[in-house]
Structures are given as C-alpha cells and as structure tokens.
C-alpha cells in the first residue's frame, strides 16, 4: 500500500482539491477577480507558456535562485567546516551568527538594491544570504555529531586533524549538509522571488506583481502555478542529489526497498 500511495493517493487528493475549488467558485458565484476557476488558471498558464518572454522571466528567476543557492552551499560548507573544527572560532563568532540568523533578511532588500542595483545581482545576494544559514548550521551540527567511537578509531590510528576532517567529520556531516540544502533551496527560491516582488523588472516574481497590477488575476494565478512547479523541480533536484552523495545512508536505501 505504502508503495502506491505517492502514485495513486496523492493525485487523487490533488484532483479532489481542484474539484472543491471549481465547485466553490461555481456555487458561490465568486468573482474571477477574487478567485478564478481552475480551468481558467490552466488556460492562462498555457497562454503564458506560449509567450517567449515568459521563458526569459523563468530563466532569470532560475539563474538568481541557483546562483544564490550555489554561493550559499560553498560558503556555508566552508564556514561550517571551519567553525565546526575550530572551537574557539565558533565560540567567538556564535553570538554574531545567532544575531544574523534572527535578523529578518527580507528587510535587507532595499539595502541590497542600493548596493547591487535593480538587476538580478541583488536577488542573487538575497537568495544566498537567506539560504546560507541552514546550510552552515547543519554543517557545524554534522561535524560535531561524530560518534565518540569513531573519534576513538581515528585517535588510535594516530590520524592528523586534516585526515580526521576529510575521512570522518566531513563524511559524517554530508547527510546533515544535504538536509540544510533541502531547506536552503526552498529559501533561495523564496529569496529570489521576494526580491523580484520588491524591486526590478525581470523574473517570475516581477510577473506576478505586473499581472496583479493589470488586474489579470487569472494570469497571476498562472504565474504562481509556474513558481510552484519551479520550486518543486529545484527541490527534487536537491533530494535526488542525496542518493548520489550518500548512497550508504539509511534515508536513501529505505525509500528504495
């Protein structure tokens, strides 16, 4: 049963929700400016996809998200590795990190626009800043959660600090890093889109605002639909990465059974 749930039950639930939506709109005669019917949204989406400029907006958003995310991954793993390995450094910087983590990053958008302009760069920076923290904190956690027994083995083998890092701490941190990346890719997508909402003239976030300003609510729903698909594709890409990076991990093989 469990095996078929994802392929049978999930689409059924989805279909049911769409039906309820259609039913609600028809029975209560909801204005299409408030909530357009699902079929109209579908047509608007197909319409959007037939216009070449939609693809350039998608490309911009993908670029901002992926570039920001990759920067966050690299800096997050490097910083997390250093802080996880060097205890005094972590103790020194910890209050600062917590402070930065608590700070609402979205509030920095006006500043980023002043610094990096209305173009994609300010969104790349926002996506990176917003997705950096879960990746870094998970890297630190993963490095610190090495089992005592594993540490004893490396100690008994008289391994150097670098060898212990490379063979044990980093490997131990990989499943944690991937969890951080799963959270991070979602946050990076949100960062890029919110950035586009608030400034600039490119990307799907901008399209959503533009269609709303033109009172084309149906098209706005279409844009949101595209955004959801985009987010899902990026998320699943990271999830698939887990299988390649940690084939030994239980979370990987248990889904394969």
């Amino acid at each position, binding site marked *: 049963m469990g095996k078929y749930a994802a392929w049978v039950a999930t689409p059924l639930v989805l279909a049911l929700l769409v039906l309820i939506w259609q039913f609600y709109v028809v029975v209560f005669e909801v204005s299409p400016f408030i909530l357009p019917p699902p079929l109209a949204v579908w047509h608007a989406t197909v319409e959007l996809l037939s216009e070449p400029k939609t693809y350039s907006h998608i490309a911009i958003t993908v670029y901002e998200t992926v570039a920001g995310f990759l920067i966050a991954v690299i800096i997050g793993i490097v910083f997390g590795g250093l802080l996880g390995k060097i205890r005094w450094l972590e103790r020194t910087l910890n209050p600062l990190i917590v402070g930065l983590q608590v700070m609402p990053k979205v509030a920095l958008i006006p500043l980023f626009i002043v610094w990096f302009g209305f173009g994609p760069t300010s969104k790349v920076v926002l996506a990176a800043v917003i997705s950096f923290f879960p990746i870094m904190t998970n890297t630190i956690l993963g490095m610190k959660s090495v*089992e005592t*027994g*594993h540490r*004893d083995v490396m100690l*008994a083998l*008289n391994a150097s600090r670098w*060898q212990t890092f490379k*063979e044990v701490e980093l490997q131990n941190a990989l499943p944690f890093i991937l969890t951080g990346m799963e959270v991070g890719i979602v946050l990076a997508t949100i960062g890029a889109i919110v950035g586009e909402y608030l400034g600039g003239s490119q990307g799907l976030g901008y399209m959503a605002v533009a269609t709303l300003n033109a009172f084309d609510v149906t098209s706005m729903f279409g844009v949101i639909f595209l955004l959801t698909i985009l987010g899902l594709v990026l998320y699943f890409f990271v999830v698939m990465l887990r299988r390649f990076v940690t084939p030994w991990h239980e979370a990987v093989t248990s889904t394969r059974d």
Partner: protein
Amino acid sequence: MTPAKAEMNPAPEHQPADLSVSAAKDAMIRLTGVEQRYKTKDHDVLALTDVNLNIGKGEFLVLLGPSGCGKTTLLRIIAGLLQSTSGTVEIDNKPLWNKKARNDDAMDELGVVFQEANMFPWMTIEDNIALPLKLRGVPKAERRARAAELCKMVGIEGFEKRWPRQLSGGMRQRAAIARALSTKPQILLMDEPFGALDAMTRDAMNLELQRIWMESGCTIVLVTHSIREAVFLADRILLLSPRPGRMDTITDIEIERPRDTYVQSTQGFQDYELSLRQRLDSFA
C-alpha cells in the same frame, strides 16, 4: 587439542603480581608506575594505581576484573588514547609519549579493537579495513589486495564491497579486527571486543581470535569481564581489584593450544574458572 593435558595440570596457584613475571621474555609492552587520577568538582578520584607490568612478545594477556576496576582505563592508556597522570608506557622499548605528544613510532605498533565495531558507515567494508593504510599513503591497488587478504583471514570473504550496515554484528566485529591488523601491528589491543555479541557468536569469535593470534604471531591484550572467555583465550590473566583499580593476581593458564570449545568442560579449565571466581567474589 588434548584436554587430557589440561586435566593433568595441578590446581592453579596465584602468583603475586610483580614486574619479574615475564622478565625472561622480551617485553613488548612495559608499564612502570602507571597511575590514573580523575579530577571531579571537590576531590580527585584515584581510578588506577601502581601498575607495573611487562607483557611479553607474542603473549596473549587478558585483563579481567569487575566493573570499575579500571581495566578499560588501563587498555586506553596502553593504546595511547589516554595519557596516564603518572608512570610510563613503553611499546617495544619506545616511550609511548614524549611529554604531551604521542610517539608516532610507538603508535605504529598498535592496533585497537573496541567493544563496538565502529565501522564508518560511508565506507565499504574493504575501505574501512584499508583505512589505516590509506592514512599512511599506501596506493589504492595495494590497499585493495591487503583488504581482500584480511577479509579472507577473518572469514568475511565476499563482503568487501558491502556497506557495514548490511553485515551482522559478528561480521562487523570481524571487519574491525581486520582493520586493526591491516598495518601488521605487533600489538593488538581489544576492549571487550565480543561483549556486544550473543553467546554463540561469541564462542565462535573466541575460536577465530585464537586462530588469528596464532597465525599473526602478534601480542594481544584483551579486556573482558567474562572469566570463561579469559581462561579460554589467555596465556596469562591479570586480575584487577576495584576502587582504586590495582593489580591483584596474575594467573598463568597452562592449557595446550590450539584450544577447542570442549576444553571448557575439562577439570583443569574449571579449576581455573573456580579459583578466579572465588578471588573475584572476595572483592565484593
């Protein structure tokens, strides 16, 4: 092989524990005045005191004692995992510590097996076994060959490419022994290596360990709280008394090798067991 030989042994006599016991053999491990204190909030706790012991080349020494007698602490001191608060440890006539730093030459002679197999889950069995060689910069092809050889020796041939969690507890512990032997150390240190295994697997592993020891010719120091296991495996048993841990008695086990499982039902074997049991009970 001949239990009759064991039966002919006179009732075992406890010898006073002192330095002279294996003076005739070359000392592979030499402990002098080893003492371990732990600092707690208000006072120091003496965990282990006055350990003076020579362990001979090729000897199988078992550290036996009740919990809290410091036997694991002593093994960790010999393994270089812990620096004793006073006293010295020499491995093959080389000091284990130079002030606060481990002596690489002495550490190279040691292989350690813990109660848990401690396999790294992200490495295949062969990579786990060959890790000590990788750390020493041995090329990959050579590591593969050595891992295959060791898998055969410890009886897990054919499992080289598996992940550790695909193996049973006993097989993982065999792999841990193979890993400890990969660099051909002169000394194998084992901290209750079969404590986490079921009784039947444990008997089988004891037989295997005896064979591996006889094949490799290395010196073994093994910690256990099982009297039966101690008598079965040991050349000499060092009994430690608790609080603080100190050397109580040394018992020579004069049962011919190789020993099989049935030796455990002979009179000689049971005499050793009984005598050790009585001594252990006297601590309580």
